[in-house]
């Protein structure tokens, strides 16, 4: 299991977001200034990530299909969360995704002015995915949907760099009224998802848990579960893949995050900065060719 397969037009990989859209995602992010709902922040971050990834796939004068992208939302329903023309589409080649955002907004970006201050610059901000927050947290069904997409992808691309699944949530599964049973169901679905593999390695599953408390202390990429506060956190830890060597390199050298042997693709009580760092760690050193 090497995670060394090149990612190219002839050997692309799949990147699947699984995003919690339950009612609690309407809560404000602790310490956010100006105040921002979690669902708005996640939508902004994922759209911005897809914008940057599209730019990363620019070679010569076109966007190359190194990735096929999927965004699953779960809350009121479990379904693909694309807005606009991609309604009901599953994995979409990144060139097609880049060509047809649901809308393009004008946003203001703050850039350093080189003298300690900032200048404001207007940018075109494509939107593929809108914020939603309603209903329960049907996490198991969402993970099973990601499983189906990854399984189908690997059947069609058996030698690919394994699909990367990035699961972002702020709360516990409501798949069962019994918390232990709900954890067991999600844990099992995550184990099943991680068990599928291409010839280059198993599916990589990130679990990113968003913070709901102002005083929470984030835990990033732990290698054991001793510091985790409860069974739910331990279930997410167990359900996460181990960071690959390249991912550890980015976490440590580019973000100054602590990693060790056995560090997992898991963060608990993440703030916005840590969420952005996690997306970078998951994809930065992809072996693009």
């Amino acid at each position, binding site marked *: 299991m090497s995670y060394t397969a*090149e990612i*190219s037009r*002839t050997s692309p990989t799949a990147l699947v977001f699984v995003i919690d859209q339950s009612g609690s995602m309407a809560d404000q992010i602790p310490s956010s200034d100006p105040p921002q709902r979690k669902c708005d922040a996640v939508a902004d971050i994922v759209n911005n990530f897809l914008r940057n990834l*599209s*730019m*990363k*796939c*620019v*070679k*010569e*004068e*076109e*966007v190359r299909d190194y990735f096929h992208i999927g965004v699953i939302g779960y809350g009121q329903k479990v379904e693909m969360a694309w807005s606009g023309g991609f309604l009901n589409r599953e994995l979409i080649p990144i060139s097609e995704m*880049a*060509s047809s*955002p649901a809308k*393009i907004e004008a946003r203001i970006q703050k850039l350093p002015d080189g003298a300690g201050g900032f200048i404001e610059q207007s*940018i*075109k901000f*494509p939107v593929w995915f809108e914020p939603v927050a309603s209903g329960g947290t049907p996490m198991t069904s969402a993970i099973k949907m990601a499983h189906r997409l990854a399984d189908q992808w690997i059947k069609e691309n058996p030698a690919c760099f394994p699909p990367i699944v990035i699961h972002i949530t702020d709360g516990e599964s409501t798949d069962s009224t019994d918390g232990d049973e709900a954890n067991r169901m999600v844990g099992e679905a995550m184990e099943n998802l991680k068990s599928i593999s291409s010839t280059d390695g198993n599916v990589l599953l990130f679990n990113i848990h968003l913070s709901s408390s102002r005083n929470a202390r984030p835990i990033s990429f732990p290698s054991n579960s001793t510091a985790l506060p409860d069974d739910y956190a331990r279930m997410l830890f167990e359900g996460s893949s181990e960071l690959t060597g390249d991912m550890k*390199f980015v976490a440590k050298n580019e973000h100054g995050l602590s990693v060790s042997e056995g560090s997992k693709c898991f963060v608990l009580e993440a703030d916005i900065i840590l969420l952005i760092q996690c997306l970078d760690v998951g994809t930065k*050193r992809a072996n*693009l*060719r």
Partner: protein
Amino acid sequence: MSIQVSNYSTPKHGHQANENQDASKPRFHPRHGTKTLNYKNTEIPEAGFIFAVSDGASEGLFSGIWARIIASCANPRSGYNKRLNAEVLQEWIRKSLDVWGRFMRKRMLSRMKLGVPLTKLPSWLEEPALEEGGFATLTALQIKPKGDWSAVAVGDSCIFQVRSKKLQFSFPITDLIDFENRPYLLSSVYGIDEETQIQLKFSPRLKKSNRWKSGDRFYIMSDAMACCFLKRYKMGEKPWIEIENLGTKGPASHFEELVARWRNEFGMRNDDVTLIRIAVK
């Protein structure tokens, strides 16, 4: 003194020749294949010759064209007897940025006349892509008469000096682990940033032992081949023997066969590969 220089280049497996993002000085023309130039004593200027490899990054707008521009702008300055240094590199970069600007303006005008967009990118992406531009490495070697040579590198394309069946010098990378780091790159928009400026590599002042001697070979290679070359050398092999057996002209140089063998037998990364072989006498 005489110099014989042969150039070789091939795209990554599965790509077309026109997708090759490596560039070199002397320039490699895929249609003509390998070319060998011979310079005799009287034809060699005091400032010597510059040979260079530039590797266009896998990301970025027109990185392959930017690599070709950088390689073409690496020229010796007549009457300038210093070794390659930051000042010379800055001059090359300034010239390259000018050429890039002209290339973009010309393209813009011709596309406007045709009524077509500047690139095939979606409109929202074209602006940030233009702001980012292209990126490429540059490793250049200046060879002058009387044993003098010097080199400069931004990124991980490498120079190897071989003498009497022994690797004499490796530049800028001597440790295989350094091939794992992201290479520093020159930008078509701002040239060189502060961080890259600090990471510029210059060959050290020459000792008697590594001034070039008659019969020495210099090889300049893009990173995939350089990494494989160094790995095999560290395993006790002499990879330059196969390079010396390459032909001097056109498809008969058998460079593609060598690259395919290195990929299959020695795990060379599937990437564009460029080699310049220089023999000095």
